[in-house]
């Protein structure tokens, strides 16, 4: 696979990030073959959104939103940060809430922060917005660790006011699904407050504008939902792995395609076998970029 002309370590002319992700195989089938993870990722997201849209046609495959939902007719699910906020605001652990947050905890103990890359609809909307911005190479100076201060700030605010502040007002997940519900109810002339729908749409549009100015700042720094899932990356079974650190050609293609600004190559050069960065959303773009060169990155489930 890696029998390419690029064997010298001298810095070559940097290809743009769209070239990096394009792959070396020709045609649509070739593109699919070199983008297995991206294709699968989009299918998962499409399935999730379609399941949530089916609720309007009275199919209870997935009802509610990604913060809290009723899945497969009888399973209650609850987002971890939403649980934390709800718990802190009501000063009560909440037996029902624990029962509904447990499946999510178990799922992400296995899958790490893959929620952000595979399930969150904002990931795709941000990706489309990136296209408009002509795929500029991301550079972002603020450390993602400050995000935990923001998350704790939201928890403190929830505790003080007695309302889950982030999840009720600002959450992209709540607002995304609330705007869908609002739109459908408005079209079907069912009881709905129009200002809820408009507010939710406004929040989503604001996030997209933020994406245009500060690429992925929401995901990297602010979004507390992702920050909480980031902690699961430290122990998850599904993770980014390096097959052979010595084969790395130090082209840093992985760093340049990463949405989240993870310095993958530094981990590889350091000699880490498992890359457990809290900002890694396990999207697999680095794996696809690496396929063209060294082909040493993998994302898969492993029990070791």
């Amino acid at each position, binding site marked *: 696979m890696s029998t390419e002309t690029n064997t010298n370590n001298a810095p070559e002319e940097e290809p743009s990030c769209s070239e990096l992700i394009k792959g070396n195989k020709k045609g649509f089938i070739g593109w699919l073959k070199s983008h297995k993870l991206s294709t699968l990722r989009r299918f998962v997201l499409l399935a999730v959104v379609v399941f949530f849209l089916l609720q309007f046609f009275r199919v209870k495959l997935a*009802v509610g939103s990604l913060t809290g939902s009723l899945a497969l007719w009888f399973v209650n699910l609850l987002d971890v940060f939403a649980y934390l906020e709800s718990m802190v605001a009501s000063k009560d652990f909440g037996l029902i809430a624990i029962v509904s947050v447990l499946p999510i905890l178990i799922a992400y103990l296995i899958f790490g922060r893959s929620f952000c890359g595979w399930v969150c609809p904002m990931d795709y909307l941000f990706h489309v917005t990136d296209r408009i911005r002509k795929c500029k190479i991301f550079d972002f100076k603020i450390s993602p660790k400050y995000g935990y201060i923001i998350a704790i700030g939201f928890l403190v605010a929830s505790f003080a006011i007695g309302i889950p502040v982030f999840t009720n007002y600002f959450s992209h997940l709540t607002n995304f699904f609330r705007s869908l519900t609002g739109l459908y109810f408005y079209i079907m002339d069912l009881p709905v407050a129009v200002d809820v729908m408009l507010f939710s749409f406004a929040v989503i549009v604001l996030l997209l504008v933020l994406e245009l100015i500060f690429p992925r700042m929401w995901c990297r720094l602010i979004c507390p939902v992702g920050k909480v899932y980031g902690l699961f990356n430290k122990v998850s079974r599904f993770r980014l792995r390096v097959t052979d650190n010595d084969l790395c050609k130090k082209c840093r293609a992985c760093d340049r395609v990463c949405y989240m600004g993870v310095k993958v190559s530094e981990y590889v050069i350091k000699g880490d076998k498992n890359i457990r960065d809290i900002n890694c959303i396990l999207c697999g773009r680095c794996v696809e970029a690496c396929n063209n060169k060294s082909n040493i990155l993998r994302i898969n489930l492993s029990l070791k």
Partner: protein
Amino acid sequence: MELDRRDFLKLSLTAGAAGALSGAISVFDKDANAAPTKEEFEPLPNIKVGGIIRPPGALSEKEFRAKCISCGVCVNVCHTMKYDTLSIAGLGDLKNFGLPYVKDTRDFPCALCMECPKSCPTGALQPVKKEDVKMGMALIDLSICFGWNGDVCLSCSKACPMGASIFDFYNGEWGNQPMINDKCVGCGLCVKYCPLGGSAIKVITRDEYKKVKDEYLADFRKTISLSNEERYNLVYGINLPMIMSRGRMIEREYRD
């Protein structure tokens, strides 16, 4: 001739613009053309609803606001059950923003299917038995109720999912005279099925009911203890003309 034509063009253009504008407005505000708003013809106009009617099984107001994360499961489950009772609150009250409530029992009453408490992921709605639900309290406006003004209607008691345990009937020559007791869960089915224009029943919160209970019951006792002649004057002099005017002014289906 030229001037006339110009005037005609001007006039038709203005009319067209006005029509387009009113059309545009009516797209945003669907009730713009509906003559009587339902608020004007509420039963018991001097008693306030006194808060927000929450979905069945809701915790106390403060705890509910702390627990609810506005995920919309209850609203959408209600939609999948084809009742569409629950709605998401708007920006009018910021503390209540995004939380579910029963918007309008006259169109979309709660049928007590008890699916939303089961599916609430946070426990803001607790799974309870139908009989223990305390969403609110339905009050009958004695001055416009058919049963209190010489008729035998029984629509409310037929619609009630709790049936005989809720209604006390004071049968007499002035009608079957229904009265709703404290066991009422506040689902609002009776509100929808009241045949009177704009309904003669109103659902208020339990807190508000505690405040107005004495006054309401005093009114009830006074009405039932009236002498025959006084009652005749009340029914034929005041109440029946009011009922007739409501019938004329309100279409039962006020939502086009």
